[in-house]
């Protein structure tokens, strides 16, 4: 990200700052905040019956004539050249159609990297894909075997022999730090922030902490494997993918293969978990290019090992957090700096300082992220990128400071909660972290915590409590489009290319559309997962719900206009302007005189129409620049640590969230819990073991990379303030990722409370608690 970008974003903020709020999206609160009926109800997932019956069709389950299969061969060295590739035995193996290497792979350009400048750029890696003899990271695809069946492809792939000319590789984090880069911006934020003289404050303050926290790499590990089926029909391309970027993938593929947008259709009705990992990577490019070359549909399904090899995860990090406070506990300095891996051919800056920029006031700030360049599969966004690990460092540090001061850690936090955005001074649209802490502490029984660590035990177990703040920014994406079709039988279909990977997108938007259009939820159908539908942005940044909600709101306005036109002069609503009516009870009614109304049925019947369809785009998300829009949470944990084995068992976990309106308490609770469980994994077990000698991932299986299993997961209590954000559609802010944040710190702080041992190096495994 560039200096130019900083200047552009900076001037947008300045200009928007002058514009009166009323002119902007969110200027007047969404009227549905007051009027909701279906929203806020405990609707079960509309796709539930299909999913529990095994009838939801996932990407690898499309039956197709003449389908062939691929197995990928991954490099076993980190950097070097392919000196010799013997593919003869593979080519002669039964069922093999072709072996593809850089020699016969069609020429395709690199993918433009995901970025802020061009929203159709969605690449996670800009490295060439099977285009030359160069190996750039360990696990890179060096060949693909295409065969009639998957078994035949897998077997033949095992027959390929590769000799490499090795070249020196950068694989050691510590060494690479010396050449770290300092980007000008991190996402849309200016990277380096320096307010006052934080280092001097640290020295002079009566209380301070200054420590380094380390977090390892992690992988998304969606249970569904990455899989894509590419089928050319003449010059048109149909792609059945499992992707969290349906429409953006279609545009990117069209560009890459020189096609018109209409010639590419990406279908992805169900995604078996994404978490940031299901984007556009090498295997889709191989599938599309090779399917065209062989003139047959081709399916590429990664093995579980393959997912670890070529789909990057969360970057490892090393973060310094230093905080100083005056005698009363007011922060005089907040320093958050550090290193994460981001090779120049990757797209994800692992924005771990975002929480430190938004949560607390301090007399001075020093914030900067540095990027370490390793020869490694490019890391990418993984659920709560940055914030998941940034809150670990920040919120551990606050706990350490509170302990040093002999102060309750909640009190210390509440003392420093920002009233306005601490760096920009912009007012928050809505912010109730204090209430989240108060409510959470009461429900959790925080007052039962012992302030002196290592004083509560039962048998071999030491027991402790901890808490932390969680944090996630509000994002609404530009470029969200929907169509609304209203039929004379009183039903409506809302359609856009959005993705369903477990968030309950269709369910919640059906609830929303029901309220927006004044129809019962049973009358609404929501279609998604198809790039032929109006384009929705990718699912990322917890933005999908509000982005689509904004488009539906815009659509309802357009529909109102169209209905008034169709209603004509004979209608009871004739002569009313769009601003004078609302859509309610299956029709249009005057806001001031609800008796003046006409049903959709009647309007359409008189106009002799079966249906009316409009398409609309959501407004530009300028509210994000006018206001500081940020969600936060208070996370509480109680756990036991075995004196004998060092094992940590989490007994209780509570999340108290401030995320605006909760649209569906049932699916929202699941989203929160799901995030918190990923946070538990982050805290206690998850680690992509990277061999710094070879540059190779050592635990590329679900047996060796541990994620929380049923017995690891306690009953998780979730609650929320539910206070609507007056500036966002429906008053909602995204909830898909915030659950992950704060959890690792709450666990680490509870471990300290239980044992007196401070672990600053995730995950908190048994060995770290056994050593003195």
């Amino acid at each position, binding site marked *: 990200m560039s200096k130019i970008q900083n200047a552009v974003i900076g001037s947008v903020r300045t200009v928007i700052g002058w514009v009166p709020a009323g002119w902007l999206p969110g200027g007047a609160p969404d009227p549905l905040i007051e009027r909701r009926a279906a929203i806020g109800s405990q609707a*079960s*997932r509309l*796709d*539930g*019956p*299909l*999913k*529990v*019956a*095994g*009838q*939801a*069709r*996932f990407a*690898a*389950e499309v*039956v197709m004539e003449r389908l062939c299969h691929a197995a990928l061969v991954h490099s076993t060295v980190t950097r070097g050249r392919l000196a010799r590739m013997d593919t003869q035995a593979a080519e002669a193996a039964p069922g093999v159609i072709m072996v593809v290497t850089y020699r016969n792979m069609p020429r395709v350009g690199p993918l433009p990297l995901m970025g802020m400048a061009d929203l159709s750029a969605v690449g996670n890696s800009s490295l060439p894909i099977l285009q030359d003899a160069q190996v750039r990271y360990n696990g890179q695809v060096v060949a693909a075997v295409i065969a009639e069946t*998957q*078994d035949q492809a897998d077997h033949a792939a095992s027959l390929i022999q590769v000799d490499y000319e090795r070249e020196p590789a950068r694989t050691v984090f510590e060494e690479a730090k010396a050449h770290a880069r300092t980007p000008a911006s991190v996402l849309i934020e200016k990277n380096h922030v320096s307010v006052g003289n934080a280092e001097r404050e640290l020295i002079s303050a009566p209380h301070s902490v200054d420590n380094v926290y380390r977090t390892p790499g992690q992988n*998304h*590990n*969606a*249970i*569904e*494997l990455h899989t894509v089926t590419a089928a050319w029909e003449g010059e048109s391309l149909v792609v059945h993918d499992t992707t969290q970027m349906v429409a953006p993938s279609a545009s990117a593929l069209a560009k890459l293969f020189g096609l018109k947008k209409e010639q590419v259709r990406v279908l992805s009705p*169900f*995604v*078996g*978990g*994404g*978490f940031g990992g299901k984007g556009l990577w090498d295997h889709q490019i191989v599938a599309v290019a090779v399917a065209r070359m062989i003139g047959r549909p081709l399916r590429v399904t990664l*093995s*579980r090992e393959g997912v670890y090899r070529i789909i990057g995860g969360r970057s490892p990090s090393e973060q310094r957090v230093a905080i100083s406070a005056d005698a009363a506990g007011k922060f005089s300095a907040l320093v958050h700096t550090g290193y994460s891996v981001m090779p120049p051919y990757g797209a994800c800056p692992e924005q771990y300082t975002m929480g430190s920029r938004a949560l607390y006031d301090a007399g001075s700030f020093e914030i900067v992220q540095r990027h370490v360049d390793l020869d490694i599969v490019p890391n990418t966004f993984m659920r709560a990128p940055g914030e998941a690990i940034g809150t670990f460092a920040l919120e551990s540090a606050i706990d350490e400071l509170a302990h040093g001061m002999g102060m309750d850690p909640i009190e210390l936090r509440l003392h420093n909660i920002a009233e306005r955005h601490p760096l920009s001074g912009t007012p928050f649209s809505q912010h109730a972290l204090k209430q989240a802490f108060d409510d959470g502490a009461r429900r959790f029984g925080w007052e039962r915590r012992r302030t002196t660590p290592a004083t509560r035990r039962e048998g071999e177990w030491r027991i402790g409590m901890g808490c932390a703040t969680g944090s996630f920014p509000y994002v609404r994406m530009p470029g969200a489009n929907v169509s609304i079709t209203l039929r004379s039988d009183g039903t409506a279909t809302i359609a856009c290319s959005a993705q369903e*990977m*477990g*968030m*309950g997108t269709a369910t919640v938007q059906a609830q929303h559309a029901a309220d927006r259009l004044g129809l019962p939820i049973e009358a609404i159908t929501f279609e998604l997962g198809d790039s032929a539908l109006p384009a929705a942005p990718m699912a990322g940044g917890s933005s999908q719900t509000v982005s689509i909600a904004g488009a539906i709101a815009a659509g309802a306005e357009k529909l109102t206009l169209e209905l008034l036109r169709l209603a004509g002069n004979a209608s009871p609503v004739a002569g009313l302007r769009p601003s004078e009516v609302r859509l309610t009870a299956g029709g249009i009614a005057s806001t001031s005189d609800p008796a003046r109304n006409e049903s959709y049925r009647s309007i359409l019947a008189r106009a002799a129409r079966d249906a009316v369809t409009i398409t609309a785009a959501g407004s530009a998300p300028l509210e994000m620049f006018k206001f500081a829009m940020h969600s936060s949470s208070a996370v509480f944990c109680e756990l036991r640590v075995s004196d004998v084995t060092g094992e940590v068992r989490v007994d209780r976990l509570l999340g108290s969230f401030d995320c605006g309106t909760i649209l569906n308490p*049932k*699916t929202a*609770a*699941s*989203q929160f*819990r*799901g*995030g*918190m*469980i*990923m946070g538990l994994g982050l805290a206690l077990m998850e680690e992509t073991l990277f061999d710094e000698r070879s540059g190779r991932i050592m635990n590329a*299986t*679900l*047996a060796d990379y541990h*994620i*929380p*299993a*049923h*017995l*690891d*997961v306690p*009953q*998780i209590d979730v609650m929320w303030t539910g206070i609507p954000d007056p500036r966002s559609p429906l008053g909602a802010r995204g909830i898909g990722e915030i659950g992950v944040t704060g959890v690792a710190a709450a666990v680490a702080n509870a471990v300290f409370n239980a044992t007196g041992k401070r672990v600053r190096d995730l995950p908190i495994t048994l060995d770290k608690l056994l050593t003195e």
Partner: protein
Amino acid sequence: MAIRVNGEDVPPPDDIRVSLLDLLREQMNLSGTKVGCNQGACGACTVLIDGRRVLSCLTLAVQADGKSVTTIEGLGTAENLHPLQAAFIEHDGFQCGYCTPGQICAAAAMLEEAAAGMPSYLTSDLTTDRIILSREEVQERMSGNLCRCGAHNGIIDAILEVAGERRP
């Protein structure tokens, strides 16, 4: 001989190396059975052979010769749900739904195991023939089925509800 899959006989594959998972998913297009690892680590491929749960990715199809295989499609349909399937919806025991068929098949067999008095690692009295399915017992017995969306609480709630209904 034949493999009885959801009540219908199918011939065992000619190639004895074909896994039960591939027979179901790739050859019979019974794609309700999922694949998350193909190496016995995730539980997504769980099906029942003569009522007992197996990981179909680690089972050769020919091992089911002469036996009866039940997949998620054989437990219930979207129109006619098995009690566990209905309880999963009620308790929101899934998000993406990919681990779900495996979880439900595993749960169905697990309830039978408990009813038959089979102890788990958490059962304190190994000689008992009456297993009380506490929350922890169910958690332990379901730990072979991973869920990355984090639907664990809902899954266990759903199973406990069905277990409660079955209790004499």
